């Protein structure tokens, strides 16, 4: 059958505009933009990360001294926030997966003619500003909000206990905010499963749980991988939820980078932390993708 693939590949020879320079002409403007405003800033950031304050002592003025110890200093200064970022992001990702999977499954297999409408409804909440939504949560979960009032009235929580300004609130906010990034890829891969394969599994003596474990879940794995990545990456770098819903003890690495940049004007440390965050995420992603055996992401 190899030749069929070869035929399919070559069949594309007469299609579209076929000057060899065309693809490059199409690529150049966009890629140039990405090189100038994504790649170059990253290189620039890398260079900033090893700078030290200039002799003049002027605030915000740094010179390149290739001081790689900046990384060690930056990390030891923000170790706590760093680990917290990764842990919060992991928990939020798992919670989002737990919420999204049944939801995506229901939309893919149980929604009938309502499928498109439900899909729109999944995305719809994200048309309001995510800051407004996060602040809404803050007020809903706040001490004067309905949830705390009811819980206190039922004596489930003590009169002094609140829900906001806590790790719980931060993780809840993150879970909520990145939910569609999880649901949509899950839906896309579940939707591609032929329901007959699930019936076949049932026909071949698999009960509902075995069918899910041996057929549905493995087939939806690309969606699981894409969804968890799309949730984990922004969650790990997020600091808005921590700022709005947390307390000083729930600060994440994003908070540190932000304050280093704007408040302390310590660009090298901010740059070093940015790079470590990016490296940590890319390493985790690479390991995860390799272990789950799905190479195609884009």
């Amino acid at each position, binding site marked *: 059958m190899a030749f069929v693939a070869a035929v399919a590949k070559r069949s*594309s020879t*007469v*299609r*579209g505009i076929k000057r060899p320079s065309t*693809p*490059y002409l*199409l*690529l150049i*403007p*966009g*890629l140039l*933009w*990405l*090189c100038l*405003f*994504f790649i170059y*800033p*990253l290189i*620039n*950031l890398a260079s900033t990360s090893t700078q030290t304050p200039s002799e003049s002592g002027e605030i915000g003025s740094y010179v390149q001294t290739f001081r790689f110890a900046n990384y060690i200093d930056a990390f030891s200064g923000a170790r706590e926030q760093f680990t917290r970022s990764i842990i919060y992001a992991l928990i939020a990702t798992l919670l989002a997966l737990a919420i999204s999977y*049944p*939801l995506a*499954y229901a*939309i893919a297999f*149980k929604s009938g003619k309502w499928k*498109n*409408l439900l899909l*729109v*409804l999944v995305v*719809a*909440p994200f*048309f*309001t*500003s*995510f*800051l*407004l939504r*996060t*602040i*809404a*949560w*803050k007020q*809903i979960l706040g001490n004067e909000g309905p949830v705390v009032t009811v819980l206190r009235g039922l004596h489930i929580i003590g009169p002094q206990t609140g829900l906001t300004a806590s790790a719980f609130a931060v993780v809840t906010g993150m879970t*909520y905010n990145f939910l569609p990034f999880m649901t949509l890829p899950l839906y896309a891969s579940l939707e591609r499963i032929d329901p007959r394969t699930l019936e076949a599994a049932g026909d071949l003596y698999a009960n509902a749980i075995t069918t899910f474990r041996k057929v549905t879940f493995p087939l939806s794995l690309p969606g699981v991988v894409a969804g968890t990545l*799309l949730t984990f*990456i922004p969650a790990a*770098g*997020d*600091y*808005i939820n921590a700022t*709005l819903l947390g307390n000083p003890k729930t600060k994440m690495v994003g908070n540190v*980078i*932000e304050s280093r*940049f704007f408040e302390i004007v310590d660009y090298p440390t901010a*740059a070093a932390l*940015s790079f470590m*965050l*990016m490296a940590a*995420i890319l390493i985790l992603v690479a390991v995860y993708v390799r272990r789950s055996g799905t190479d195609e992401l*884009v």
Partner: protein
Amino acid sequence: MRRWISKNLIKIYAFLAFVYLFIPIAYTMAFSFNDAGKSNLTWRGFTFKNWQNPCGAPEVCSALGNSLKIGFIATLIATILGTMIAFALGRHRFKGRSTVNLLIFLPMATPEIVLGASLLAMFLNLGINPGFWPTVIAHVMFCISFVVVTVKARIASLDPKLEEAAMDLYASEVETFRRVTFPLVMPGIFGAALLAFSLSFDDFIITNFNSGTLTTFPKFVYVSSARGIPAQANVIGSLMFLLALGIVLAGQLVSSRKNRV
């Protein structure tokens, strides 16, 4: 009863998930009708006042205007550049393809704070002050990848036989593109533009780094959150929600009427 529950468990679960998704929306909308005065934290009575005068609170509408302007310009540029890349990737064979794919993927895998911080550092190094255009540049940068991925998916789902049929029916390469390829990819481009706009409009982190003193709508919300957000912000949030929902639903309706394939 128990059988009914176990049979419909997944639907009940999905329903609850939707409730969870919509709680903050309902809250935001409800409080847009709050006769709030200065602080919109507690319910003080129903009013249409905020809806009649959405620009009533200081700065709300100038912030909104900035966000819309940035959103439109960034969407336009990102959609054009991203669509061009998507066509190159989807319709041509060339060297360095995997490098291009990586370059498209990386911005999506980079935390926003890193994107924002690195751009700001570069602008400062070059002596460019943060503000309107640096923000537009930043938004185009992070929107391109999403446009490429969306449009590429649409191109990939296109049957190459359709283009062959057009050429077979006396359409030259240019005409084939104009009459068949482009119209068929159009819904994908439209969807990509919508996505780019909502990403741009809703962005806070990267904007916060690169906009300097310019206020965008998310920045306005963030800054005023400390002392309570004016109810007018809820009105604008609700309006954006209804508008976007309307556009998407109308788009769905049109496409389901137009080509049921």
